[in-house]
């Protein structure tokens, strides 16, 4: 279980105060207007932002004292997930060992994970030679290969076209079921994940305004605000 309790972060022009729980093994879709604090929430869990007060635990372990690299967390961004000078296998390998001194077992694991995300035989390609969807698959493979039980996806497929986006979300769903990882994913279009997510959280003005089953959230009194957030950009 991921538990966020009154985690408060302040900037001169923005205050965030998050409270949210996500059951282990669940997929939680985070929706809301841009600038509302979705990404900040993920960055805080990953350790890029430190709350001044509050508690943040995963499976009972306090995450706040841990450096980003020590947290049981892997993150995938919307863009720039891959280093262009490394090939696909090396990019995935960074999730196992930043030194890239990989054992044969680890290399095999990378191959298998690439296969699992539908990129069999792509190991020696460079990111520059691949499509946007393929690159995000590589980033996902890296998050999976690291074996970290909590995966954060920050608008991972927003730059892909709708069909591809849907395929990727189904892939994420399949992976988390097979590997029983917990996933927090910010998305721009809630309907993409309405049927696969176990939980949906609406974040606006730096707060988790509501959280619950996707159908309940989408049909709640928040519906107009959600629609406005989607058509906003």
């Amino acid at each position, binding site marked *: 279980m991921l538990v966020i309790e009154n985690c408060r972060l302040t900037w001169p022009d923005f205050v965030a105060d998050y409270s949210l729980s996500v059951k282990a093994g669940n997929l939680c879709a985070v929706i809301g207007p841009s600038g509302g604090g979705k990404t900040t929430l993920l960055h805080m869990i990953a350790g*890029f932002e430190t709350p001044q007060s509050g508690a943040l635990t995963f499976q009972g372990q306090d995450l706040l004292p841990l450096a980003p690299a020590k947290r049981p*967390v892997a993150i995938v961004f919307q863009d*720039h997930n891959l280093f262009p*000078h490394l090939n696909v296998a090396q990019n995935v390998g*960074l999730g196992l060992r930043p030194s890239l001194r990989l054992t044969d077992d680890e290399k095999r694991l990378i191959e298998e994970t690439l296969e699992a995300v539908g990129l069999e035989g792509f190991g020696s390609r460079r990111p520059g030679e691949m499509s946007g969807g393929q690159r995000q698959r590589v980033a996902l493979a890296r998050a999976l290969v690291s074996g970290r039980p909590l995966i954060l996806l920050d608008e991972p497929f927003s730059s892909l076209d709708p069909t591809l986006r849907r395929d990727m979300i189904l892939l994420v769903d399949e992976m988390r079921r097979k590997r029983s990882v917990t996933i927090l994913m910010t998305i721009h279009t809630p309907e993409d994940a309405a049927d696969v997510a176990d939980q949906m959280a609406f974040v606006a003005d730096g707060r988790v305004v509501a959280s619950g089953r996707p159908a309940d959230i989408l049909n709640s009194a928040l519906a107009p605000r959600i629609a406005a957030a989607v058509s906003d950009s």
Partner: protein
Amino acid sequence: MLTLRLPHPGTLVAFAILALVAGGFIALATFDGGTPTLFSIGPYLGRVLAFSIIQATLSTVLSLALGIGLALALVRRSFLGRSIVLAALSTTMVMPTIVAVFAVFAVYGRSGWLAEGLAFLGWNDGFSIFGYPGILIAHVFLNAPFVARITLDGLNQIPAEHWRLATAFGFTPAQIFRHLDWPVLRTELPGIAGLIFLMCFKSFAIVLALGGGPSRSTLEVAIYEALKIDLDFGRVAWLALIQLVICLSMTALLHWAFTRPPVGHTIRSLVRRPDADNRRLKSLDALVLAIAALFIAPLAVSVLTGLRNIPDILEADLLQALLTSLTIAAAAAVIACLLALALASAARRRRLVLRSPRMAAFYDFLPDTLLAVPPFALTAGLFLLIQRFGDPSSAGLILLPLINGLAAVPFAYRFVAPHLLTVEERYGRVAASLGVTGWAKLAIMDWPVLRRPLAAGFALAMALSFGDFGIIALFGGTELVTLPYLLYERLGAYRLDEASAIGLVIVLVAFLLAHASGRLSHAGH
């Protein structure tokens, strides 16, 4: 019926430039004065070439080492006055070489600060800055900040996500260098290194003033001496041809191998570098910053000391020289902008209308080739041509703006060409469907977009030309005196106080123009 169509102005300009260069060379080579064989100047040429290559290599290596170290230290550290240092780095691009020469004299010269300091400590053994020391100091002073500036811009392009990933993976400082900094350096450095080598290889004012002997000269200085001292036009032709071939091949190599398409705008990574806390890197950066400050600051400050001597030089000849410099620089900037505009619009026509990217690439390359043409040889050739057809006494007045203008074309071109392309891509089809062509198109479509970049190009061309101490060395004298020439004269007479004031005036005007250029080119974004 046969219709005669006037060629595109850009085509005419391209032909005119080629004809000018070819005409100059032919005039030199056919000058009736017993052309020497390459063999007869062989040993001398060998010495000059060897010196040119060695000093340029050393200058490049030292500039890269200091510049990269400085860039990495600046990108990892924040300290009071950092933004001032960053702003100062950009200014050395237009620092006139002759002012750098003054700074070297003032700090390291016979009666410079260092010598005085050592004498104060009872150390009176004179050391000479002539030869390698002076030349290397001046070249590194001018180029290391340039390296730092370009490298910093490259490092700032690293996306914020990569820094977050580096944090999330727990990269060590070595891994950060390997996966984040080094890929940037690897793509930027070959181009910068090539450019610096080229500039040092054809260095003129610095080597002329600080070389200190006939064996220690670059080809450019050798050409000047053959012209000014020996009046040996045949030797000039040979030296110029060799210089042209070497510089042209280097320019071509740089242009084709290292010109990358401009990167799209990325959000500057404001994310904190995870290696900023590393102790060893902290000491390393402190060391590098200290070395850079000790090396660069005195040279820069020596120019500022000119302030107190300004009252001493406020005489008629200074104001006359200032006026002459400004006039020549403005004329050169007009020439540079017109040529750049014509070439850029020809390139655009080839690329977008005629769909001929190869010819377009030729037009893109032509401005850069002007960096390779030895100005003295071209000047001498054109001088001989003018002599053949008219009164040579006013040749300087024509040739100075022309040669300076040609040298500034590549800079003006870089401002103008991308904007011209953008306009065409946006409005080209609309204009074609409305039948707006030729001058009307230039006035209605291009001008509003082009005004600012053109003004920016003009200001930069003027800044470069204003501080240039090149062929004025040939024409300068009682009749024609520019500020850089005046500075060179005072340096020759060891009147450092007056030189400092003149240097300050040159630097101020050049920096103001460059600053205006920067403002103009950024205002549109």
